[in-house]
């Protein structure tokens, strides 16, 4: 039963991940005054990449990088409940709590660093250095907000967090914490103005520069799934979780569209600027939010 549940969750995350990625390309095309590709374009891309030849090798660590990242993404999907009650679409969330999920969220960047480190491409190394620097600044406000949510619920369990939001969701109860978390969430999703990692025109594809064929496809698939996991986490922490599948789609969609529009209109910060900004505004918001608890 749990196995079927897990399988279903992964399937949903995969489908929604690619759908949202397609939607992102489509929406940002509309913002640019273009029509953009079809919704399933990213899916076509990943299928094509899976059947493309792999031309490079830099030893086993190079291949291990994307696999570690994919492991992080899959575990995250399985440990975050999709629905806020009942037994279905819960995956393994009863045996994990928020702390495990937060811990697993940094597995991706670490796997990436290992893979990139072994190929030695200067653009990859630059990208990953930027990514890890930014990650430190991203985590600070996000963790402040999460600590606030945990204090409010009195527990790090998802069920307790849902329970605490049964009357009023955290977004309304603690708007400052939500704002702090949302700004870091933009960075976690790789949206402008914090998209310094794979910044085109600066570091080419950043960490993905040397990857081709199947492993690049794996990178794309895991990032689509991981994005959906992050959306889920935000929905669970601040929007009270989803009552059913329709609610899940609605809430993740609203968050996603907000992030996409904000990302489409801002220019990119430099690494230092984004670190400074994240250390100031959202961190301050988080601290004030914590003080008001």
């Amino acid at each position: 039963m749990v196995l079927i549940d897990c399988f279903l969750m992964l399937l949903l995350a995969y489908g929604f991940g690619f759908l949202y990625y397609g939607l992102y390309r489509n929406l940002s095309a509309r913002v640019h005054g273009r029509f953009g590709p079809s919704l399933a374009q990213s899916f076509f891309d990943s299928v094509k990449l899976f059947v493309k030849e792999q031309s490079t090798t830099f030893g086993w660590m190079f291949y291990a990088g994307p696999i570690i990242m994919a492991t992080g993404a899959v575990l995250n999907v399985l440990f975050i409940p999709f629905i806020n009650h009942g037994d279905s679409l819960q995956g393994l969330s009863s045996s994990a709590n928020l702390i495990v999920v937060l811990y697993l969220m940094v597995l991706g960047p670490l796997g990436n660093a290992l893979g990139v480190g072994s190929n030695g491409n200067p653009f990859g190394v630059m990208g990953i250095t930027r990514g890890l620097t930014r990650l430190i600044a991203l985590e600070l406000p996000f963790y402040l907000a999460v600590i606030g949510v945990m204090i409010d619920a009195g527990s790090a369990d998802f069920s307790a967090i849902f329970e605490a939001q049964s009357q009023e969701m955290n977004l309304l109860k603690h708007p400052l914490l939500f704002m702090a978390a949302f700004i870091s969430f933009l960075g976690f999703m790789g949206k402008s103005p914090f998209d310094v990692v794979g910044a085109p025109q600066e570091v080419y594809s950043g960490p993905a520069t040397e990857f081709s064929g199947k492993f690049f496809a794996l990178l794309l698939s895991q990032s689509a799934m991981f994005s959906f996991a992050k959306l889920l986490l935000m929905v669970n922490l601040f929007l009270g979780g989803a009552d059913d599948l329709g609610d899940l789609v609605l809430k993740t969609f609203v968050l996603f569209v907000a992030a996409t529009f904000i990302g489409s209109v801002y220019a990119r910060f430099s690494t230092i600027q984004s670190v400074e900004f994240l250390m100031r505004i959202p961190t301050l918001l988080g601290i004030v939010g914590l003080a008001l608890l």
Partner: protein
Amino acid sequence: MEEGFNAYRQSLESEEQSIKSTQSVVEQAIAWFRAHSMFVLAYGTGCGAIEMPPTFTSRYDIERLGVVGVATPRQADILIVSGYCSPKTLKRVIRSYEQMSDPKYIIGLGSCTINGGMYWDSYNTIKKLDDFLPVDMYVNGCMPRPEALIEGFVKLQEKIRLNSSEAGYIKYRDNYAHYRANQERLFGAQVAPSYEENFAGMN
């Protein structure tokens, strides 16, 4: 026998049918995905490169066809060589092409890639790109408008969908000696190391 435009079109279609009948459903599906997702490495060698930005941005929006630019040869399917090449540039173009993974295709943009164009008697540009690299699709004109480039992409898409064995990367592998001899003649002692041993084990 029927004559005219329709007859011509029918003959093309029957040719397409005969190629498709030899392929399995899986092969056809893979070819379809390949045709609908083309990652482009746009190599701005000559003045024709100036027509590529409008093709890729809001004005002509080629992303509608699933064509996107990528920054590294490792991920690219299609190399656009946009115009004349001096030997010095060509060396880099060849290296970029050889770093791409199969299946890969080349679009020659502009008359200069076909026969040297207005540079045909220049002392330091090559005349015919096809002598050094296998070109899959030429887009003629000096310089070709974005519409022409889009037309080239659509034609190339049809070619990829047919999954024919005449694709450039297969030609390059099978006739490597020919291409290599031309490259050696042009570059002399400064020719890059041969990639031939990498072909071993490929189908």
